[in-house]
């Protein structure tokens, strides 16, 4: 007999984008202090229906929210990332639970002071007085021919900052469960949605259910090597795992999914079993999340390692525009498979 959560009647198929949208609506229904703000989240602001709210966000992630919750809780902002992210920090300190849409990760340098010096430090600097329950949502990632200023993930930048939680869902179920957990969390959470995932479909619980932050997801079990991947790198990693399986290589694939807090125990436990680690992350290699995980796991599980951990990162350049260059920039299934073979060859 299957458990309730696995019962098809309790699961629904939806896209990553629908999962985000449903979770926002669910959270806003559950808690009147949850508000959303950002650029174009309603669209046509101030004009009234049917123009106002017809757009519902650049990708449609906030469609329908204005209609249901009104303009006080669904606020379109001017293009003032520093201003409205700072306002969200102040609002979070003053009784609201803002979910901010900053549109693209590449735009966040505009609001870095508000995120890094204000949101991340305020609780610490005030000796624990400030509570800042806010979520900063952003679309991120390359592969859409959007060029250098619309394609960053910035995973390591956010992960480096104490005081921020950093969440990178890789599936619709993770998007839903982790977004709900992020909204319910009393800390500033950076929630990074890879654009290439928005149309991906998958099964999610019929009712949004919070998925605790700080735990890896085991997407594919295996014994020969551990592939720990960040966000959309899961796509390439699973493709590599399938290819390797055909060659008799049994890969375990982990979705790291929360970069802060990091489930080092979970990753290490897998590596202690497989003896090999490949970390896959779509950001340039220096000071990357992959570098951090490789170093941390080495400290924890050195004697169990049968090959030095390997990193599969993006190229050390801004994201290029030309499709042939962008494809070369990205971590690919071929590079993941090659890294796993290298790790195994060293046995």
């Amino acid at each position: 007999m299957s458990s309730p959560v696995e019962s098809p009647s309790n699961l629904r198929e939806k896209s990553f984008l629908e999962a985000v949208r449903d979770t926002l609506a669910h959270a806003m229904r559950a808690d009147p202090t949850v508000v959303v703000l950002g650029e174009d989240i309603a669209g046509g602001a101030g004009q009234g229906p049917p123009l106002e709210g017809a757009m519902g966000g650049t990708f449609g992630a906030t469609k329908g929210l204005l209609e249901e919750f009104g303009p006080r809780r669904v606020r379109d902002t001017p293009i003032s990332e520093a201003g409205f992210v700072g306002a969200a920090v102040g609002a979070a300190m003053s009784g609201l639970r803002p979910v901010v849409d900053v549109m693209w990760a590449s735009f966040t340098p505009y609001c870095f002071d508000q995120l890094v010096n204000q949101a991340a430090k305020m609780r610490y600097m005030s000796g624990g007085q400030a509570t800042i329950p806010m979520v900063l949502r952003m679309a991120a990632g390359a592969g859409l021919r959007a060029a250098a200023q619309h394609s960053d993930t910035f995973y390591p930048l956010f992960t480096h900052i104490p005081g921020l939680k950093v969440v990178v869902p890789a599936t619709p179920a993770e998007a839903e469960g982790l977004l709900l957990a992020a909204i319910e969390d009393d800390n500033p959470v950076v929630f990074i949605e890879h654009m290439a995932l928005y149309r991906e479909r998958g099964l999610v619980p019929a009712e949004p259910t919070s998925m605790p932050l700080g735990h890896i997801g085991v997407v594919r079990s295996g014994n020969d090597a551990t592939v720990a991947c960040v966000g959309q790198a899961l796509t390439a990693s699973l493709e590599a795992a399938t290819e390797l399986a055909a060659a008799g290589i049994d890969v375990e694939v982990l979705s790291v999914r929360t970069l802060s807090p990091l489930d080092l125990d979970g990753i290490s436990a897998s590596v202690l079993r497989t003896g090999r680690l490949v970390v896959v992350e779509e950001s340039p290699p220096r000071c990357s999340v992959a570098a951090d995980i490789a170093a941390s796991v080495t400290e924890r599980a050195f004697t169990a390692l049968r090959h030095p951990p390997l990193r599969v990162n993006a190229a050390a350049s801004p994201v290029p525009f030309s499709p042939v260059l962008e494809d070369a920039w990205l971590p690919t299934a071929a590079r993941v498979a090659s890294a796993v073979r290298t790790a195994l060859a060293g046995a």
Partner: protein
Amino acid sequence: MDETELLAALQAMLRIRLFEDRVRREFGKGDMPGFVHTYVGAEAVAVGVCAHLTDADLITSTHRGHGHCLAKGVPIAPIIAELYGRETGLCKGRGGSMHVADFSKGMLGANAIVGGGISLAVGGALAAQTLGDGRVAVSFFGDGASNEGIFHESLNLAAIWRLPAIFVCENNGWAESTPSSYAISVERIADRADAYGIPGVTVDAADVEAVWAAAGEAIARARRGDGPTLLEARIHRLGGHYVGDPEAYRSREERRLARAHDPIDAARQRLADSGVDVASNITDVENEVVAELDAAFAAAREAPWPDPEEVERDVLAG
């Protein structure tokens, strides 16, 4: 402002002045870590504005935040302990002079990033408006901050959303060593309000009554739901940028002239002119503050340091 209110304002200003003069002296002894910026000469601004606020109302402050704390009702002893980095400090020694905060008094923190508190106050006002709880949010910041992008974004946001926010620019004429006359494109910072379609008012910060009246109007307007105001208070900087600043960039003549615009002297004079016996009305208060300061400094120096094992405490909630 009647004489009772003016006397109360004078007492509140003296509390700040005595505090800051004492901090300056004690800092010279060398056992206070880091560096401090005092609120000397600006007392009338915090006092004139905060006289209209309750504990529920919100303020954000600057690296020069002791005066804002005191005017908002934060007790002396925990501020002093914070300046010494002790566990008994307002922020348990994690913040120091430039980050003093007391959320129970609506004081959302001194902020050492120039302009850093402005958008936070907009957020406080956004929360107040969304929750409909009648609070207002005041941001204190300097003339230098009016050149930051965040100042302009924040005024625009507050204006388009008609938020209950008051932007109080403490213009002391100097962004550290750079004069406003060089760095600011307009004669009056309050004129920058025109760009956002909100009222901009300039007052002399040596005149606590003028600050009080202008702030009262701005705060009443915000509470009515009529939106934000930019209030520029022109301060005559009586001291250096920080305690120990030799002010090599400033003429002796300007420093001398500034001393003729002490808000405390002005309030005393105004009360004396009205026939109030000022000395008999403030001596007790002065003695009380001095006794409070004596006790606070003695306690702070004896207070426990934070436990080094707890260096990572309070990074995250929960």
